[in-house]
Structure formats: structure tokens, C-alpha cells
């Protein structure tokens, strides 16, 4: 089964890989397999495993999409040094398909995690906090906004 790789016109090597086929599937598969691994290692209930996956997904994606700025190579001479990965994808255009997909994934994870834990209290609070932070960080109005100067440059 073959797919065609259309070359995008994105000059930023850090974000261009996200426009190729297969990324969305890989993302979803990684989440599913990490749920299986958590379940087999910790021998807990499926709901708790989904909560753990949801919260670690929150930590990882917040750190890499909304906290770390710049690109992992020096070729582009630092023109993206003030932008987080989320602000760099699709060259800053808002509400593209990729951005919508990445906004929906934490919400779906939240729904699965809350449903499988039957909306019980300590987990529900943390899950809601996580999804709230992630979704607000992805709003178009939050493009290049640094609240209270957190993560702003010197």
C-alpha cells in the first residue's frame, strides 16, 4: 500500500515533516501502544492507565509544543528562536487541518480518560486541568502571547 509524498513549500525543516502522510496515524498509534504498555507494566485498571497516558501526553506535548522555542539545528540562523513549535507549524497560519487535528486529540483523550474512570474525583480534576491548559494554549488568539511574561525572551 503506497502513498504519494507531495513536497510542501514550508522552508522550516523543524515543522515541515508534519505535513507528510502518515503522521496522524503514527501519533494515534503511539498513544494507543503507550496505553497498552502502561496497562501491562503497572497492572492497573484501564481507566487509570488512560489517565496516566493523558497526563503524560499533556506534559510531553506542553513541553515540546508550547514551551521549547527554536529549532534543533543551527542552519536557519535562529530566525525561529522566539517561536514555539506550535507557533511555527504551517508558517503561523491559524486553523489549518494539522492544527485542528492537534487540538482535537487532547480533547478526545480527555473524554476517553474521564469515561473510563467513571468521572471520579481526583482523576477528573487533573484531567480537566490538563485539557483546559492544552486547548487554551492552542487558540488562535494565543499566537505569540506570553502570559505574565512566562517563557518570554530576555
Amino acid at each position, binding site marked *: 500500500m503506497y502513498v504519494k*509524498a507531495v513536497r510542501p513549500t514550508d522552508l522550516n525543516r523543524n515543522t515541515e515533516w508534519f505535513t507528510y502522510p502518515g503522521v496522524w496515524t503514527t501519533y494515534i498509534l503511539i498513544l494507543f501502544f503507550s496505553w497498552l504498555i502502561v496497562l501491562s507494566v503497572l497492572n492497573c485498571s484501564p481507566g487509570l492507565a488512560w489517565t496516566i497516558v493523558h497526563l503524560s501526553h499533556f506534559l510531553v506535548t506542553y513541553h515540546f509544543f508550547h514551551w521549547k522555542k527554536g529549532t534543533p539545528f*543551527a542552519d536557519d540562523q535562529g530566525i525561529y528562536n522566539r517561536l514555539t513549535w506550535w507557533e511555527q507549524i504551517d508558517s503561523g497560519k491559524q486553523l489549518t487541518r494539522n492544527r485542528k487535528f492537534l487540538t482535537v486529540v487532547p480533547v478526545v483523550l480527555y473524554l476517553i480518560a474521564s469515561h473510563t474512570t467513571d468521572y471520579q474525583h481526583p482523576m477528573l480534576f487533573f484531567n480537566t486541568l490538563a485539557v483546559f491548559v492544552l486547548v487554551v494554549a492552542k487558540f488562535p488568539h494565543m499566537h505569540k502571547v506570553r502570559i505574565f511574561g512566562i517563557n518570554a525572551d530576555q
Partner: protein
Amino acid sequence: MITIPYLTALTTYFSYGLLFAFGQLRDFFRKIFDWCRASNLQGYAPICLGLEDFYTRRLYLRIQDCFGRPIASAPDAWFDVVERYSNDNNKTLKRTTKKSRCLNLGSYNYLGFAASDEYCTPRAIKSLKRFSPSTCSARVDGGTTTLHTELEECVANFVQKPAAVVFGMGYVTNSAILPVLMGKGGLIISDSLNHNSIVNGARGSGATIRVFQHNTPSHLEKVLREQIADGQPRTHRPWKKIIVVVEGIYSMEGELCKLPEIVAICKKYKAYVYLDEAHSIGAVGKSGRGVCELLGVDTADVDIMMGTFTKSFGSCGGYIAGSKELIQYLKYTCPAHLYATSISPPAAQQIISSIKVILGEDGTSRGAQKLARIRENSNFFRSELQKMGFEVLGDNDSPVMPIMLYNPAKIPAFSRECLKQNVAVVTVAFPATPLLLARARICISASHTKEDLVKALEVISRVGDLVGIKYFPAEPNKQQQEKGLIKVD
């Protein structure tokens, strides 16, 4: 268009994710260990911000032995590769005195001028004795010898343009000329896969840069229309100049540019065309005059033709060819002409002699033979690789053929296994290519004989089976089938 098997795309993303995760883990522990060790650079800003050299440290250095291999002889069809070893898991590599004789599938030696040539080398040695290895001066000061003027005429004649100017380095030609031609208020529209020298020159010029989809004339037209209608950013005044930059053969794809359509569109919208023939000059076309001859485009339609002498002429340096007024202007303003040392005299003589051989002016038909041989070699090699089931990019007649690898682990596997069997290949990965599309790039030369190519095909086929890169089904061997039928009868 590259067709990837879907499963390979998924596994490639997963592998890169894993490598990235391990790199971050190592960085995290390194930060903890380094906290204990106080550094004596308190108050100084760090040279690299935390994330900038992540890719180099955590991905590139692990497979460093596949890149930058030192060679100990001229880059002919067979050459000596120095063996290296590492005591600290590839962070540092030490050279040994042992050399291995390998088949060279990586050098840009398209016409075989890289090694000693019976016409060019005696003349280069004579000019070395007469002029010395360096002119020790910039062109405007004392660095223009008779060789330089002869070379410029020779090049202008070869590419069929009124005048030309030559520079000491190919990369510098692009990055120093674009800022001179364009300034703030101009528009540079470049192909998305243009070489780093063009990207750097365009960024350094201060003009606005827009990118069009690789080799897609319809997208170029769309971008041109949008930009002309829009005007300069913020003020919306009309653009001062619009220049479209394309390459003759794209070095990472082996594809030829769709020059006739692009030139037609640029004429329609009155934009200038800048053609970078680094890989195609001397290697394609009936008499080696490059992609314009091959595709039947009149050289008067291409406004600025740029090329380098490193690939087909066995020398170093670059040139710009255009109208007399343009070259005159460049000679007053280009910093590479005014301040940089001029091209070395033996190198200039090598270029002049090799152009004479290509055009047949040395009295033999070696030039035409070389051109025919490189065409046959490339077509033979490419069709054989495709028959074996590899995914090979590039058009027919192009001497550059990338074999797709995709997974990051297959890059060092392919490279090291081929080296063990005495075939040296160049592998390229992110960030020179897109993340998914890592490849091994093969450059065919006119000095490869049929036996060399057959040996290379055997080795690549064996290594390909081991590494698992035959993504397409192999075509069955038709001759064996026919023999079988005859025997049955």
C-alpha cells in the same frame, strides 16, 4: 513524486520519535551531571542555546563514521578510503594508516576529469610552474591574469552567452551574487528544493522570499500572480524586481527542471530567470552545454546562468554568464570579485583544457565519447536498479540517482555494509532532505567502466536485501523465462 509504502512512513516516524526521546533523556541526565560540575564561564552567554545543536549531538554524532570519510587519492572511479576507528562510541574518530580501495559512487566526477587526464594535467602543471598556485590578490587588484580573461571568454562561448565572470568558489558565487542583484523591495521566488547557497544568498539580500512547489510551473504561476497583485508587504507598492531561481539538475533528486514551461511563465509575467546549473553543466546535453541544450531552451531567454566548475570540469570555482551589461555591472559591485581572491591559475587552466576536450577542440573525440558514456552509464544503472525493486529518483539521462532509504537506522546500515564490500556511497538524511525521505545518493561518472557498474549493482543488491530497501517488487528476469519456454519446447 515519491511513493512511500505506508507502513514504512509509520515506522520511520516512530524511529525518529524514539531517537528524539532517547536524545532528550540523555540531555536531561547530562544537565543533572553538569550541575554538579561548576564551570568557570560565569556570566558569559552560552555559545549554543540549549536546543540548537540537539540534532548534531544526539542524532548526527551517533552515525558520524558514515560522513566525512577522508580519502587518500584522487576521486577517480576507484579511490582509497582511510579507515577510522572510535573509542568513545563515535564522538571522536581517529584515523589509522590503513586504506581500502573502494569503488567511488559519491564524487561529482561526471566526466572523469577528477583524475589525471592526458590533455588537461600537463597543461595544468605547466600553468602551475608559470603562474604559481595562487594569484595572491583580488581580481581588481592584481589577480587578473591572462588565464582569467581567457577563461571568462571560454565559459561565455561554452554556455552561449555574450559574457561571463568567474569566481573562486561555487557556493560563494550564489551567496554573493544574489545580494548584489536584489535588494529590499525585490522579490525572489525560489524552488522549494533549492540549494543552501541560494537560500543563504536570498536571505542575505534583504529581498522578500517566496517559495513555489518543487518543479510545478502551475504553482509558480499562482505564486507570481498572487505576489504581483499584492505588491510589497505592508506598503503594497509594486515590486522593484522579480527573479525566479531554479536549478538545472536538483542534486538531491536527480530531476531535471521543467525549464521550457518556467521560462514561458516568466516571460508572460516579466520576471527574470536565474538558472543554477551546478550539476547539469557539462554533464547533460548533446555537446555538454547543460540543461538548456537538453530541453531546447534558447539561452537568450534565461537572463542569468550560473554554474560551478567542481562537478564536470574537475576544478573549483563558479561562474555567472549573462548579457555584457549585467557582467559589467557585477564586476563593479560584486564583493566576490572586488575583495575575494581570484580563482587559482592551475584550476583555471584545468577548466579551459577540460572545456576544450568536451568541445572536441583538442583534436580528439574524447569529449563526445565521455558524454555518450555518462549517458549510457546513467541510463543503464538506473534501469537496472529499478528492475531490482529499489526506489530510484531522477529523470532519464541524469547522472545523479538517489536510492530511497527512509528509516534512520537503514542509513548507517547501508553505508557501513557497502563500505565493508568496498563500495563507497554517500548517504543523506535530515535536515538536508525532508525528515521522511533519507536517501543514498549515487553519482555516476564517465570513468566508470561496465564492470565497475556491474560490481556496484551486485553489491547494492546484496546490501539492499540485507537492509530491506527493495520497496517495489522486482521485475522478473525476462531472459530466463524465455529460455525456460524454449527448453520445454
